[in-house]
């Protein structure tokens, strides 16, 4: 049987406010344990929450960016459960009256098609602290650090509109790009600034009824999210094909061992007894306030993507990736401006440059190759000064800080041989020095000739130290061999 998977995401976005959602304590990451937990964060008796206006404004920005309804009134509720990293014994969150209503986010799949993912709602809430399970405090104990307690979160809840791990990752990256473009989240995945819960179910291909779903919680990288979804889909299919039933449960995924497991402790009693928090009156959001925020909204990835397509004529898929961050699209625009060939600029930015940056785990801002310099390099490819292959060598040198493209090309004498006379001599000499290969070409069937020609091209490139203009040389060589073949046959 073939199976379809149905995936919904809950994305926790940590807001980059200076202070907590309900207290004036700092949210800075990495401080000494419990040094940033004030009386309110520690739930000291008699303390009261006061809502941070920046968190509300950030939520409105997100709401506008995901084309969502922003209701005039939203309410904070208490979600009651006991956990050591939850000092009050309840989480202040939103349930029935979230700050952001229904919305939608378009994503572009690799084949260029657009898919709209519906947002069920997004709400504001406070983060919990952290439980540390190993340390100098001895086994059998956990240590609690409440620095993170009270950090503002927006939880974005999608409809189950995603149908593969790949789509889920494209969507998650889109949200990452949205919140970082808006400047409401620093996007530092390793520090937990974005965390994903994935709801996964499978159903027979073509069926419309939803299968039983599981929720895998707390995935903090795109990679783990993808792995966890694939693993969970496979697990559910295996269960169903063996005639079993999937149990609705909360699961965790261990990225190191690549295994998923059930989080049974969360299951026993999840009666959260929500009710409106009597310490916090309803929040009112006026139309004029929303309009004010709308005016100040930065260019969003989608707008940027549309602009890049129309202004530079590049493909939607490339434009979408380039638009994920303002820094990346800025970089691209400089490269394109310099080399006057946007398609090549996009290829180089997304291919060579991003490849190296990802391997080195560097953000675009810290690229050792400046956009202007990459622009010059691409320009040298476009004006045939160097070949694409040589350009990669030059890029390597530029990456290592050995100079700009022009300096490297000049110093290392990498300029492409384009002069027809010189190329002609080169082709003639290689033909005469390799009679066997030439003969092979002539006697082989037409279907093998391309490969034989490649062999001779290799000889030419070797002899020219890779500097021969490949296209012109190829043309010359092909013509010469064609002549020789005709002669032979005559």
């Amino acid at each position: 049987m073939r199976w379809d998977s149905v995936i919904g995401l809950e994305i926790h976005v940590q807001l980059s406010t200076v202070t907590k959602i309900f207290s004036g304590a700092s949210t800075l990451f990495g401080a000494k344990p419990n040094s940033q937990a004030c009386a309110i964060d520690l739930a000291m008796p008699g303390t009261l929450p006061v809502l941070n206006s920046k968190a509300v404004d950030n939520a409105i920005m997100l709401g506008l960016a995901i084309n969502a309804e922003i209701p005039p009134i939203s309410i904070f509720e208490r979600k009651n459960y006991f956990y050591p990293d939850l000092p009050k014994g309840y989480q202040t969150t939103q349930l029935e009256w979230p700050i952001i209503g229904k919305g939608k986010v378009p994503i572009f799949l690799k084949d260029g098609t657009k898919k709209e993912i519906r947002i069920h709602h997004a709400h504001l809430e406070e983060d919990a602290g952290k439980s540390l399970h190993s340390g100098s405090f001895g086994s059998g104990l956990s240590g609690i650090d409440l620095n993170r307690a009270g950090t503002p979160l927006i939880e974005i809840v999608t409809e189950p509109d995603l149908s593969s791990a790949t789509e889920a990752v494209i969507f998650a990256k889109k949200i990452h790009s949205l919140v970082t473009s808006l400047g409401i989240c620093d996007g530092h995945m390793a520090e937990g600034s974005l965390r994903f819960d994935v709801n996964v179910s499978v159903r027979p291909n073509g069926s419309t009824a939803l299968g039983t779903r599981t929720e895998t919680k707390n995935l903090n990288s795109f990679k783990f999210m993808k792995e966890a979804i694939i693993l969970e889909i496979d697990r559910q299919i295996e269960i169903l094909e063996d005639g079993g039933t999937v149990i609705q449960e909360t699961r965790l995924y261990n990225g190191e061992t690549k295994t998923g497991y059930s989080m049974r402790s969360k299951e026993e009693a999840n009666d959260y007894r929500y009710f409106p928090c009597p310490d916090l009156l309803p929040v009112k959001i006026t139309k004029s306030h929303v309009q004010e925020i709308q005016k100040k909204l930065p260019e969003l990835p989608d707008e940027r993507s549309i602009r890049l397509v129309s202004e530079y004529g590049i493909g939607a898929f490339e434009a979408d990736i380039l638009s994920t961050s303002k820094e990346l699209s800025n970089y691209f625009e400089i490269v394109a401006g310099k080399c006057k060939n946007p398609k090549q600029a996009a290829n180089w930015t997304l291919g060579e440059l991003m490849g190296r940056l990802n391997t080195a785990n560097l953000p675009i801002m810290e690229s050792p190759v400046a956009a202007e310099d990459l622009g010059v390099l691409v320009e040298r490819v476009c004006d045939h000064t160097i070949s694409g292959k040589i350009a990669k060598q030059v890029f390597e040198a530029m990456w290592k800080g050995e100079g700009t493209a022009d300096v490297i090309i000049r110093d290392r004498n990498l300029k492409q041989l384009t002069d027809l006379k010189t190329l002609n001599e080169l082709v003639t000499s290689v033909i005469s020095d390799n009679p066997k290969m030439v003969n092979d070409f002539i006697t082989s069937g037409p279907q093998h000739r391309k490969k034989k020609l490649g062999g001779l091209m290799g000889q030419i490139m070797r002899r020219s130290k890779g500097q021969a203009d490949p296209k012109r040389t190829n043309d010359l060589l092909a013509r010469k061999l064609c002549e020789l073949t005709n002669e032979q046959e005559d």
Partner: protein
Amino acid sequence: MHDMSIASQILGLKKREFSSVELTLHYLGRIKRLNPIFNALITVTEEQALESAKRADETLSGNIYNELCGIPVVHKDIFCTRGVKTSCGSKMLHNFVPPYDATVVENLSQAGTVMLGKANMDEFAMGSSNETSFYGPVKNPWDITRVPGGSSGGSAAAVAARMTPAATATDTGGSIRQPAALCGVTGLKPTYGLVSRWGMIAFASSLDQGGPIARTAEDCAILLNTMASYDHRDSTSLKFQEKDYRDEINRSISGCRIGIPREYFSNSLSPSVEATVFKALGVLTDLGAILVDVSLPNTKLSVPAYYVIAPAEASANLARFDGIRFGHRCENPQSLEDLYCRTRAEGFGEEVQRRILIGTYCLSAGYHDAYYKKAQQVRHLIKQDFTEAFSKVDVVASPTCPAPAFKFGEKSDDPVKMYLEDIYTIATNLAGLPGMSIPCGFVDRNPIGLQLIGNYLQEARILNIAHCMQKETDWHNSAPKEHS
């Protein structure tokens, strides 16, 4: 000195008839003698009190000072006091010394008042007799075999026994007014949000409100001037027009319309209390006030609604007492669940546990709508009753309690009997209205209280009526017999 009102003590300090240190020493002496009898205070802060009194005397020698400077006060042990144990009447917080002050405490200490100690109370303010305190019950100074009322029983008893001229208190369902009535003193529960809840340990956040207990309405007005403040740390704090509550206190009450809710004078009211209250109302009509029959038809539902809403909120408010960051922690917890369950079972008394269980029940899946939501709808009906009444009258008057102080143990078997003690006071909390209780006579030598309920932010109006009555009567000046 201890028979003087705060208003007279202010004058005495101003005229240098006595110093704050002398006044403080006098009360500390009385506390030393009387507290073993009445158990009104959990903590006595003698050293600190004398230091503050000295500082107050220095301030008083200058020209600019708050009128309360140098006046001794007692804080209900629900208000956090920096560096002084704040137990909330519970074993759970027997070791809790907060590093911060409640706003009420801060306001009063900035004014130069002298804290004598912390008043005993029902555990976490849950009770109407002070029998639920971990530190033992407070005795009613009028009859030590009777309860002082609750939950602010320590505050009311301390004022009644002249162990302090003033006490802070809180009122969630009658906890200022009922003990004030049973101890023969004057207590005011302001409009919800007038007095900041910051640093006041929460019982039921949408009902809790701090206020003063003193001997006279005028003294309550003086205290409220300092206690009421907009507080940015409490987002339910009201941004109100500041005023001097003493300004209008002498206004004539001629023509004032006083609503008499017929539902408050029903079968559950003891006939002698009813007679006493009507006699007191006669004083007001003699001053020109007009009694108007009004109806608050949903009165009988106020106790049921309250016993859903208050426990529901409390069940969440008290979840923070888990033995991890502060307060009681059980010995040798075997597991996390053991730490929670044993800490809480050991730290909370029976009544607190009962209310947590009720609240949990009313919020749990399947019961949420039938109880919690229904109670909030009834709450709305109760509020509408008052809106309707206040379209016809300026204030509403009633007995504060259905009967005088009862004997210890009399109602502790059946929680419901105890809950009905607050039948006349609870509705004002549900609606968020201001209410006060003033002494209005005696039944068998036990004090009876008259309750005055005002419209939102009409504290000045009810203080005015109370003061006019106190100018004409002497009940508020009667003192229980001195114990030695």
